[in-house]
């Protein structure tokens, strides 16, 4: 069981309020990702849930019980830190066993749990090593091992993959998702990487300056962003946001169209443009096209086979059914 509820939670550091009144429910067994640009308060929010920071006002409930003033160790949550925070002078076995030793469990029970965690995480061969002798991915797994032996109500991950190289990150992403399916425990995951958010989450919480911009499933956020911030933040490459006369033609202040929803043609179309830089990924090619309707170049996704010269003139047609419209306050117009 791991249902976490935040009710009117605020957090101020001195005069500065970093979390304005915030309400959020994380359901049992759900994989929730907090995503937002750096400094948006997502890590602070996680630390509030963990109990590493005191909340200024409001209530945090875990499994329906008030946990606002409960010390971190008694909240039944386990956390994986960005730096892994392994204890460098202890072997992997001792690192994983540490929370169990602190809970004064019997040596047999500790052994059994460490062994099963090591099995799950492929760490059996490394149990006697020190963290300093492990690679980044292995350290990450030890940190996760230390979290799962406690059999917590929920896992909290604070940007756990940001210290890994790109290839390992993809691998660990899969492993964490797999672990979630296997354990079926609530996980709260903080990241600034929207790809991680999209691929792993059941529910994404987009944060900006402490405010929740939108909560929803990855596809909901992608297909129906509530405002221009979410529209620009979710999706890679970013959604094209166009203001001015072209937007006014669609009765909106801003219109948005994703790169894959623009058709490209060399003879006719709605917008005329000149090809700028092209990024060839092999499967796809992203063209940056300068047009009259916007100061920013438009990003257009095309098949990898399409070749266009720098400076060539092309015509673009947005698919009307995928056009997003936003009003003057940046909110979505249905």
């Amino acid at each position, binding site marked *: 069981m791991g249902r976490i509820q935040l009710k009117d939670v605020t957090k101020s550091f001195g005069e500065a309020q970093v979390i304005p009144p915030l309400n959020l429910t994380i359901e049992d067994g759900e994989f929730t990702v907090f995503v937002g640009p750096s400094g948006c308060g997502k890590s602070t929010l996680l630390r509030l849930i963990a109990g590493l920071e005191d909340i200024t006002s409001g209530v945090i409930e875990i499994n329906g019980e008030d946990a606002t003033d409960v010390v*971190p160790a008694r909240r039944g949550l386990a956390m994986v830190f960005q*730096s892994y925070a392994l204890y460098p*002078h202890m072997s992997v076995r001792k690192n994983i066993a*540490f929370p169990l030793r602190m809970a004064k469990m019997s040596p047999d029970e500790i052994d059994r749990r460490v062994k099963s965690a090591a099995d799950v995480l492929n760490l059996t061969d490394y149990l006697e090593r020190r963290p300093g002798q492990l690679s980044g991915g292995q350290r990450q797994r030890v940190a996760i091992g230390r979290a799962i032996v406690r059999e917590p109500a929920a896992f909290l991950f604070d940007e756990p993959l940001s210290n890994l190289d790109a290839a390992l990150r993809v691998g660990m992403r899969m492993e964490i998702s797999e672990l979630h399916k296997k354990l079926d425990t609530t996980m709260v995951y903080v990241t600034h990487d929207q790809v991680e958010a999209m691929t792993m989450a059941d529910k994404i919480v987009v944060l900006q300056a402490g405010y929740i911009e939108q909560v929803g499933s990855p596809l909901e956020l992608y297909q129906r962003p509530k405002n221009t911030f979410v529209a620009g933040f979710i999706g890679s490459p970013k959604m094209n946001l166009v203001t001015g006369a072209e937007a006014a033609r669609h009765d909106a202040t801003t219109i948005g169209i994703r790169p894959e929803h623009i058709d490209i043609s060399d003879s006719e179309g709605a917008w005329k443009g000149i090809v700028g830089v092209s990024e060839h990924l092999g499967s796809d090619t992203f063209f940056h096209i300068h047009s009259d309707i916007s100061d920013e170049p438009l990003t257009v996704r095309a098949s990898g086979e399409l070749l266009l010269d720098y400076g060539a003139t092309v015509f673009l047609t947005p698919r009307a059914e995928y056009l997003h419209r936003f009003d003057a306050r940046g909110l979505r117009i249905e």
Partner: protein
Amino acid sequence: MATKASRSAARLMMAPAVILLMGWMLVPLTMTVWFSFRKYLPLRGGDLGPAGFDNYVRFVTSSSFWPAVWTTLIIVGGVLLITVVLGILLALLLDQPMWGQGVVRILVIAPFFVMPTVSALVWKNMFMDPTNGLFAHLWRLFGAEPVAWLSEASMGSIVMIVSWQWLPFATLILLTAIQSLDSEQLEAAEMDGAGPLQRFGHIILPHLGRAITIVILIQTIFLLSIFAEIFVTTGGAFGTRTLTYLIFQRVLESQNVGLGSAGGVYAIILANIVAIFLMRIVGKNLDA
């Protein structure tokens, strides 16, 4: 530093420094060893020829030799114990965020800048004087009989004075070590259910291992040869004669350079025995 030319140039340029340092060490050492085998009495005829091992035998069989060795070891051990324990506690305290942190830290470090002679005199005359010292006044305030510190509790007094001087050094090194501890490790331990004492025992203390080793090794080097503190307070009386002080007395008070030199060679041996023990006990902390 890859080519042959640059390597020999490097050797050539390092040579003066190496030769100077070698000379600095080897000349006094050789002279000490040389004099230790001579009968050399500066005011009673000067160098009176070879003495064989007479000086060594006389120094070691003197009734003051073993007490001096023990006094040395007790002072070194006592000061190490006090400075390391108090140093850790002070460092923990100074690591806490507080108002006026910078000033407090400078004040804590200040005693280290006071010359040994001066600090020993200040302690002797201002604190420990049985009639006018602050301690005497304090004792009288509570109706107690003032303690004649330097004669009645001579060893304790000297250990206290020297500890006061070296505590800032230990505190400074340990404080920087504590500050280098990753705060996420402490938070992780907190989440894992470790209380304040357990966090200290399982996380902070192991992290300080290397710094403590360094404090112990460096302090031992300097503490084995403390002299000024004893010279200006007890003058070696009341059981405070260390090996260093004994050598000083043999050479300058008895005017027997040969005997003193033999004592110097024993002091080198004692220092090496202490060093071997220390490296056995704490040296493994230095391996990365």
